[in-house]
């Protein structure tokens, strides 16, 4: 081939390769961290909440179908956590507090799920919930005693939990919204309380509008 300026051509090809590589690697320049990629993927997949057995702060045992027909607002935590979890639950209360009262308990259920079932027995959960003004009914705290079921749920919802050596866990945090059919429909930033509350209210308003 009669080519000239070969190095310019190869530079161009390399550059093109770089653009394609970064494009693929970041889902079209969207997701630079695995957490963003995870949330984007969840929104696309809309995974079903598995039918696990929960044990709540009043030691009642039931499966997730207990909440069928309601939206469920979920967070994942462990009570021995001194850093993110209290903030997460405070913010969850912030959302709870901002929602129109008529929806609470009737159209939407609040649920905090512990991924540390060994330590978070019903008594611990019950004393923990009081710190965050949870009433234990419309906002329950529960553990999943069966480890396989727990892992299945964490896996489906993309919750990464890494135990460190001091009895703590590193974990990603978010607000999860599951629809009345048990499908995950939204993952929200737990630091943006206003936004999450508005989002949930508008979903509930739409639902209420449809029923009329």
């Amino acid at each position: 081939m009669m080519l000239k300026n070969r190095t310019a051509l190869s530079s161009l090809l390399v550059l093109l390769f770089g653009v394609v590589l970064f494009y693929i690697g970041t889902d079209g320049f969207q997701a630079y961290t695995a957490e963003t990629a995870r949330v984007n993927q969840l929104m696309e997949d809309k995974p079903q909440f598995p039918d696990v057995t929960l044990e709540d702060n009043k030691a009642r045992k039931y499966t997730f179908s207990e909440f069928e027909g309601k939206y469920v607002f979920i967070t994942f935590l462990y009570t021995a956590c001194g850093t993110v979890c209290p903030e997460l639950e405070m913010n969850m209360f912030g959302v709870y507090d901002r929602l129109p009262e008529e929806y609470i308990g009737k159209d939407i259920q609040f649920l905090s799920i512990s991924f540390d079932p060994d330590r978070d027995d019903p008594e611990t959960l019950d004393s923990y919930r009081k710190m965050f003004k949870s009433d234990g009914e419309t906002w329950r705290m529960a553990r999943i005693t069966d480890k396989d079921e727990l892992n299945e749920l964490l896996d489906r919802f993309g919750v990464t939990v890494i135990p460190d050596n001091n009895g703590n866990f590193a974990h990603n945090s978010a607000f999860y919204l599951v629809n009345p059919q048990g499908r995950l429909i939204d993952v929200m930033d737990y630091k943006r309380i206003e936004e999450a509350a508005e989002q949930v209210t508008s979903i509930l308003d739409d639902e209420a509008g449809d029923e009329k």
Partner: protein
Amino acid sequence: MRQAQYGLVLLVILILPPVANLLESIMITHMHMQMPLLVLAGFLIAKFFQIKYPQFFEKWNANGLPGLLLFIIITGYWTIPRTMDETLTMASVEAFKFFSLPFLAGVPLRDSWPKLSSFWKNGIIIFFAILYLGMGWLYIWSPEQLCNNYLLIEQITLGWGFLTTAVCMVIYLGYSYFIDFTQYETES
């Protein structure tokens, strides 16, 4: 040719699952030991390709710039928090790491470096010093945990690793500016 063999041995050792798992279990050894060692392996293996395919490098990397560009793209790619996370969870990304760092970063760097003028050489070191300062800042002061598979404390450790590397590069730049290297070479 012997060094190409050493490079291959190094690469194979790095790929061995126990070695890979060990280095990847800590964030800073993953990024600041395993990855540079992979580039080094490619750097050594490069000799083999240079001898085997001299025209290819002569034709397509005559001034060293395409190779340098490729090196920057590949190393830049592996500083994205997500790519590091995904090597731990996806086998294909892990495989791409073991291929791209030696062959698309180490090999072109070896071929390009002697061809580059000192302007480009210093430019690239300045570029990486700035990039690493930025990465260090990001990893240390980011309010968020950037990688799901590593603890926050490891992220901060890695940040300091970036900063110290950047400082070393700046020291080197100052050193090379004030010290006349040719003096050493003539006397030895």
